[in-house]
């Protein structure tokens, strides 16, 4: 092992400096509180909680981590007047994945593994939750731990999976799809990844600081009552918010400025439009969350009263700020899936995307309207009741652009030559899942119906159908479709089908009955429930365990096909006309030999003499 390579700016240095920064902040915070003798912070002595220290510790820890990775090198070099250049892209070796890399392909793979790891942690938490709910009385998890468990599951999933598609796939593929060699801001691209990893570790550390009692929504004033673990939650979402904001910025800047000559807006692959509509939301909604959490942190440390009614604040303020972010957030989760489904259905039906402009209008329409609906989370909260018809209308209106995606999917498969490959199966499952997810959304958006379903397992089932049934299924579709391009090896088809069918059936078996449970009066986040609901809960838990096993099937497929079977994928295993499949697999470091000139869109299936780009790609084995 080359010791010299270990020393330098990489993950190891990052961890060392991160831990150092953490302790510096922790003891520095204690010194601040004790040494400066601030009267209003005296209560830290009574509560055994030192929120200021913990925030400082996390902050300095993250800064140390980023400095150790090498993010300060470029700014410092420029500050001192030295010329700078993008860091040399290392061409080989596994060590390039363990540090700051400006190669968008490396960042994409880093995202894939990093998000995958945290997805499994969140999934493990879900298995524990379902195990606990096997019995109506407290089972194996003490009551205090259960709330933190529920919060950890939700927060981890919501924070990590917002970048679930844009992180791995858009980072890797967006430049290739638009004919560029890099993202607009490669260093920011790497920053978004490492911020997310630091955030994940911080969230997991919350369990060692007294847990988080509020659920992923972090409502005030319970937020202020929480132990120090609440600070970890706040720090997590602040970092995730910054990461999301920068990721969206990068995507938009890349698409706007770095398209190849001839790549007009109407020749973009539909997946890119999905990325654009998501990036807009990321850029605009995340800052509101960061603002709300900054206020929450101030309420918890220096005793401001933004959200404490007894001292002049309002608990509604947090709900509004959170959901102003929170509703666009769930569309951030759903929109990339729309793009993936249409993109893949075109390839596997061997037809152009039907109604391309309608689909784009649908995605942008969802994006725009998502900012106008957030009060539907507060229908029974005591908001002014004449607001309810307006927000009911605006929420139901969003289903119209969402419906455009369905009709475009229907048109794309009409009279096609449909191939039931594993990615296509996942896309068809999306149609099924999002149909029920979207329709039950109509139920909860209807204020009278929402009186019963708000805060119940019905809402839980609704958002798991749209988020897990929508996002996660398209996530796997994207993996089976694009991983061969990224690594050069195909995923095993038979194992993929086993994975798909186990996952699809167990998913519906897990979340379908939850609609009934909600209607029968089971509230969310409860560790105990009426005994007559036990059989249904047991069925759901058993199905959830099978769902967990299906993930292990996927893992087995991943390891087996990528490390052992190693069936070469070739440049274009699916016969796609899109630009990324005209390059070799895995994609070479410099991406394109020559930037192509685009003369057509990638959906010329069945059209005589349709061409995507000139000059034709030599030796790539794809369609000219």
């Amino acid at each position: 092992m080359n010791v010299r390579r270990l020393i330098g700016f990489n993950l190891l240095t990052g961890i060392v400096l991160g831990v150092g920064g953490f302790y510096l902040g922790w003891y520095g915070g204690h010194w601040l509180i004790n040494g400066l003798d601030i009267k209003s912070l005296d209560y830290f002595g009574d509560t055994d909680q030192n929120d200021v220290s913990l925030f400082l510790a996390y902050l300095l820890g993250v800064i140390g981590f980023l400095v150790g990775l090498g993010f300060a090198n470029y700014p410092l070099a420029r500050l001192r007047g030295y010329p700078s250049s993008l860091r040399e892209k290392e061409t080989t070796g596994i060590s390039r994945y363990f540090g700051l890399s400006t190669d968008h392909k490396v960042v994409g793979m880093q995202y894939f593994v990093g998000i995958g790891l945290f997805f499994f942690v969140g999934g493990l938490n879900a298995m524990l939750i379902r195990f606990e709910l096997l019995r109506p009385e407290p089972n194996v998890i003490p009551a205090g731990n259960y709330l933190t468990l529920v919060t950890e599951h939700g927060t981890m999933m919501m924070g990590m999976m917002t970048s679930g598609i844009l992180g791995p796939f858009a980072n890797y593929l967006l430049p290739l799809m638009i004919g560029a060699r890099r993202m607009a801001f490669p260093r920011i691209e790497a920053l978004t990844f490492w911020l997310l990893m630091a955030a994940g570790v911080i969230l997991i550390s919350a369990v060692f600081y007294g847990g988080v009692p509020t659920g992923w929504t972090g409502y005030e004033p319970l937020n202020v009552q929480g132990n120090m673990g609440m600070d970890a939650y706040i720090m997590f979402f602040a970092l995730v918010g910054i990461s999301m904001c920068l990721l969206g910025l990068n995507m938009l800047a890349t698409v706007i400025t770095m398209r190849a000559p001839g790549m007009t807006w109407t020749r973009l692959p539909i997946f890119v439009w999905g990325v654009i509509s998501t990036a807009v939301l990321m850029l605009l909604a995340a800052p509101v969350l960061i603002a709300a959490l900054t206020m929450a942190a101030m309420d918890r440390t220096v005793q401001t009263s933004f959200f404490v009614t007894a001292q002049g604040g309002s608990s509604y303020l947090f709900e509004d700020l959170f959901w102003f972010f929170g509703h666009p957030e769930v569309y951030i989760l759903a929109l990339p899936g729309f793009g993936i489904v249409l993109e893949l259905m075109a390839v596997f039906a061997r037809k152009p995307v039907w109604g391309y402009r309608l689909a784009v209008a649908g995605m942008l329409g969802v994006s725009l309207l998502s900012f106008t609906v957030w009060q539907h989370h507060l229908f029974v909260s005591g908001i002014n009741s004449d607001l309810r018809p307006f927000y009911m209308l605006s929420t139901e209106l969003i289903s119209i652009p969402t419906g455009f995606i369905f009709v475009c999917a229907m048109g794309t498969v009409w009279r096609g030559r449909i191939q039931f490959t594993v990615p296509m199966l996942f896309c068809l499952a999306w149609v099924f899942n999002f149909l029920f997810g979207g329709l039950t959304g109509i139920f909860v958006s209807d204020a009278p119906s929402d009186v019963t379903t708000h805060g119940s397992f019905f809402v839980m089932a609704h958002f798991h159908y749209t988020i897990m049934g929508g996002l996660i299924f398209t996530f796997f579709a994207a993996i089976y479709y694009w991983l061969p391009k990224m690594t050069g090896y195909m995923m095993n088809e038979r194992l993929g089908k086993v994975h798909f069918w186990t996952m699809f059936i167990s998913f519906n078996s897990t979340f379908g009955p939850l609609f009934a449970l909600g209607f029968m009066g089971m509230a969310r986040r409860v560790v105990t429930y009426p005994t007559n609901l036990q059989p249904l809960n047991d069925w759901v838990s058993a199905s959830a365990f099978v769902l967990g096993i299906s993930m292990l099937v996927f893992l087995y497929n991943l390891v087996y096909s990528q490390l052992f079977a190693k069936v070469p994928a070739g440049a274009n295993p699916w016969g796609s006309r899109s630009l990324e499949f005209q390059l070799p697999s895995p994609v070479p470091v410099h991406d394109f030999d020559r930037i192509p000139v685009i003369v057509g869109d990638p959906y010329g299936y069945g059209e005589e003499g349709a061409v995507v780009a000139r000059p034709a790609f030599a030796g790539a084995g794809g369609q000219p």
Partner: protein
Amino acid sequence: MSSTQKKIAGILAVVAVAGVAIGFYVVGVWLAGPKAYRPPVLAGATPTVDLTLQTDAAAGPTLAANPDWVSYFVLDSTNHWRHTTIWTLPAHATIHVTIYQFDGDSGLRNPFMAKVRGTVGNTMTLNGETTDVINPNDASHTFAVPALDLIVPLVGVADDAKNQCGFGPCPLSTAHQTITFTFETPGKGRYRWQCFVPCAAGFLDGFGGPMQTLGYMDGFLNVV
């Protein structure tokens, strides 16, 4: 060793490490919780249990992880105080409870909780005198089991009392109030009990920290 065998060995090593990590994570983080205490059952026509408790202004460093938090303690059969709030009691039994209250008053957020409910006769004795209500501003803690509609408010030690106890477990020689009451346990089940006085100093509404952590001001009655 061929490269395939090396790969398999590597993967098995990763799986083993992951398995151990997951095991520690699940058992150490999630399953860990306070232990239950089972007081001895006295024989008789109906089972009877004597439960002796104390409430302190600060749990103290000897038994508790958070020494500054208010806390309950339970007296075990060897005459030592234990730091647990999960007690195992027999079903359909008579429980005689004695509480030594060492903390000062904080006052109730909802004065309605100052009325004694759910005990035998809906009364308690405070330092020997039978009463069914206290002044809500004098309350220091409560012992309440909402599922049994049981609530007993505990009067606080006066601010100017001599010889107040600093941190627990407190000896009976220091200033305290003595409250006794009797209640009947129902059938099998787990019933949560809690304090209703906002006694968690420094937390918003006095309801954070010890008021939301098992082992301090909240617990369970495991009726078996």
